[in-house]
C-alpha cells in the first residue's frame, strides 16, 4: 500500500504545484490579479462546476463516467425558472423538486448500468440527450427568475474585505465539498467506491454491496448536477435550456487534472478542488490577458496530456497500479 499512497501524494503534489505556479505567474504578470477578490471570483464563477466535479469525482473513482451532468444542469435551471416565473411556485419548493428529479435521473441511469451491465458511457450519453431534450420540452426560451427569496439568496454574502465577499453559491460549494470529503474518507460507502473502482470483481468477492454502491454513485452525481443547476440559477437569476453544453467535459477535466485516475480506484476530492482552481486560474488569466478563448481549450488539452502521462509514469513505478 505504501506505493499507492506515494502515488497519491505525488500526483496531488504535482497538481498543487501546477496551481501555485500558474497563480504565481498570473499574479506577477497582471496587475490586480493577486487580490482576494480575484481569488474569491475564482470560486464564485466556478461554483456550479465545482459542485458537479464533486459528484463526478465519485463516479470516476468508482470506475464509471457521467456524461449527463451538463444536460441535467440545464434541465434543472429551466425547470426551476419555469415553475417560479410562470407558475408562481415558491423557489424553495421548486428547488426541492428539481433536486429530487436530478437524483431520480441519476438513480435511473445507475440502475440501468448495474442491472443490464451496460457501459456507463452509453447510458449517461443517453441520459445527456434525454435531459437536454426534456429541458427544451419544459421551455424553449430562457426565463427570468424574479422572486424575493431568490433575490435575497443572490444578495447574501459574507463580506471578507471592502471589495471581496463570499457569495451564497461559494458557501453551498464549501458545504458540498466538506461533506464529500467526509463521505469519501470516513464512511463505508466511500471505502466501497474506492474498492469497486480498484477492482469490481474483487469487491464482489469480498462481499461488498456493489449494486447498491454503484447506483448510489450515479444518484449522487445526479444530485450534484441538479444542485449545480440550482447554483447556476442563483448565479444568473434565470433558467436556460441551452445552459451547460459540454459542461460535463469541463468537470471531467478538473477531476483528471486533480489526479484522479480515469480507470477508477485512485484519487481525492482535494485533488479535484485543485484541478478546478487550475482550470479557473487559466480562465481568469485569459480574461486578464484578453486572449481569445480557444487558448483555454488548448491549455486544458495540454494540461490533460501532461497529467495523463504523469499518471502513467507514476503508476508504472507503483506495483499496486501496474496494468495487468
Amino acid at each position, binding site marked *: 500500500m505504501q506505493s499507492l499512497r506515494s502515488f497519491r501524494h505525488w500526483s496531488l503534489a504535482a497538481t498543487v504545484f501546477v496551481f501555485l505556479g500558474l497563480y504565481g505567474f498570473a499574479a506577477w504578470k497582471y496587475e490586480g490579479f493577486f487580490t482576494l477578490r480575484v481569488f474569491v471570483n475564482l470560486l464564485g464563477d466556478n461554483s456550479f462546476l465545482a459542485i458537479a466535479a464533486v459528484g463526478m469525482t465519485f463516479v470516476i473513482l468508482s470506475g464509471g463516467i457521467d456524461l449527463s451532468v451538463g444536460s441535467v444542469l440545464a434541465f434543472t435551471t429551466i425547470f426551476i425558472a419555469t415553475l417560479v416565473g410562470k407558475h408562481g411556485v415558491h423557489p424553495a419548493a421548486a428547488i426541492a423538486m428539481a433536486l429530487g428529479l436530478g437524483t431520480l435521473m441519476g438513480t435511473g441511469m445507475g440502475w440501468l448500468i448495474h442491472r443490464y451491465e451496460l457501459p456507463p458511457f452509453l447510458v449517461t450519453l443517453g441520459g445527456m440527450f434525454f435531459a437536454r431534450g426534456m429541458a427544451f420540452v419544459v421551455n*424553449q426560451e430562457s426565463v*427570468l427568475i424574479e422572486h424575493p427569496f431568490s433575490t435575497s439568496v443572490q444578495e447574501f454574502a459574507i463580506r471578507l474585505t471592502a471589495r471581496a465577499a463570499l457569495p451564497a453559491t461559494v458557501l453551498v460549494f464549501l458545504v458540498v465539498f466538506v461533506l464529500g470529503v467526509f463521505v469519501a474518507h470516513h464512511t463505508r460507502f466511500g471505502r466501497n467506491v474506492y474498492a469497486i473502482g480498484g477492482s469490481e470483481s474483487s469487491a464482489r468477492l469480498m462481499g461488498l454491496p456493489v449494486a447498491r454502491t454503484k447506483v448510489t454513485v450515479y444518484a449522487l452525481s445526479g444530485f450534484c448536477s441538479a444542485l449545480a443547476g440550482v447554483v*447556476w440559477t442563483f*448565479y444568473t437569476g*434565470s433558467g436556460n435550456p441551452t445552459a451547460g453544453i459540454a459542461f460535463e467535459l469541463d468537470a471531467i477535466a478538473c477531476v483528471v487534472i486533480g489526479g484522479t485516475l480515469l480507470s477508477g480506484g485512485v484519487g481525492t476530492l482535494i485533488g479535484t478542488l485543485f484541478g478546478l482552481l487550475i482550470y479557473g486560474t487559466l*480562465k481568469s488569466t485569459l*480574461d486578464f490577458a484578453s486572449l*481569445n478563448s*480557444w487558448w483555454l481549450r488548448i491549455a486544458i488539452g495540454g494540461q490533460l496530456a501532461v497529467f495523463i502521462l504523469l499518471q502513467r509514469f507514476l503508476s508504472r513505478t507503483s506495483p499496486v497500479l501496474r496494468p495487468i
Partner: protein
Amino acid sequence: MKQLFIAAIAVLVIAAAKKPATIGFAQVGGESSWRTAETESIKSEAQKRGVNLKFSDAQGKQENQIRAVRSFIAQGVDAIILAPVVETGWAPVLQEAKRAKIPVVLVDRGIKGEESLYATLIASDFVEEGRLAGEWLAKKASGKAGIVELQGTPGAAPALDRKKGFEQAIAKHPGIKIIASQSGDFRRSQGKEVMEALIKKHGNEITAVYAHNDDMALGAIQALEESGRKPGADVIVVSVDGVKDAFNAMVAGKLNCSVECNPLLGPMAFDAVEKALAGEKLPKRTVVEDKVFDQANAKDALPTRKY
C-alpha cells in the same frame, strides 16, 4: 529638492490623467461573419481612439460571458461594452458593475429586467428587420407561399424578434404560411442540416425559405442545390444581416433578398461610452438604421460592403 519633488508629483499626476481609458468588450463569440465584422469594428475603433481594449470571447456561453464581465470589474476597467448572449440572467453581474460605478453599454442585443443597470442599448430593431423580410417575401411570392423558417439560437433576442416581425408581416396574407420552423442556431452547417431534413419531410410544398441570418440561408441554399432545386428561382430565399457572402449569393441569383443588420457599431458604441463616462444621460435605446437589399441593387452595393 522640494521643487524637484513637486515637479515629480506633477509629472505623475499628468501621466495618470493622460492614461488611456481601459474598456472591456465582452463578445458572444465568432459564430458568424456578422459577428466577426462587429468585433473588428469595435477593435479598430478602439485603436483609432487610443483606447486600451480588453477583449473576451464567450464562445456562445453565458457563464463565460458573466465571468468575463466580472473579471473586467476586478481589473477596474473604466467602462464595459457587452453583447449579451441571451436576454436573461444579467441582473447580478450588472448590479456588481453598477456598485463599482462602471457604465455598461449594450450592443446589438437587449436584456430583460431593470433598465437602470445599463447606460444604453445600441442595436437594430430586430422586429422591424423581420417585418421588412416578411413584406418583401409576400410581395415577391404574390400572396402564396409555403415557407420554411430557420430560427436563430432559441431564446436569443434576434431570433425571437425576427420571428415576431416576420409573422406580423405575413399575417395579412392568408395564402402565405409557415409550414415548418426550426432552429439552425445561426450557423451555416446547422442551417444546411435542418434544411436537408425539412426537404425530405415536406418536399415540393416548400416554395420559400426565411432564415434569421445569412449564414443559415447560405447553408439552406447548399441543401436546396444538392436536392436538385434552384434556390432563388424554384424556391425564394430571404434572410437577414447583409454580409458579403450574402451579396455574392444575390449577385449569383441564389439568394433573393437580405435585410441589412449593420454590425459596424464601433463608432456608435464608443461615442456612447465617452458620453457615459462624461456623466451625460443617454437615451435607453439607440436604433441602428437598416436597409433592404435584393438582387436588383446588390450588385451596385457589393463593392462598398465591408463585411
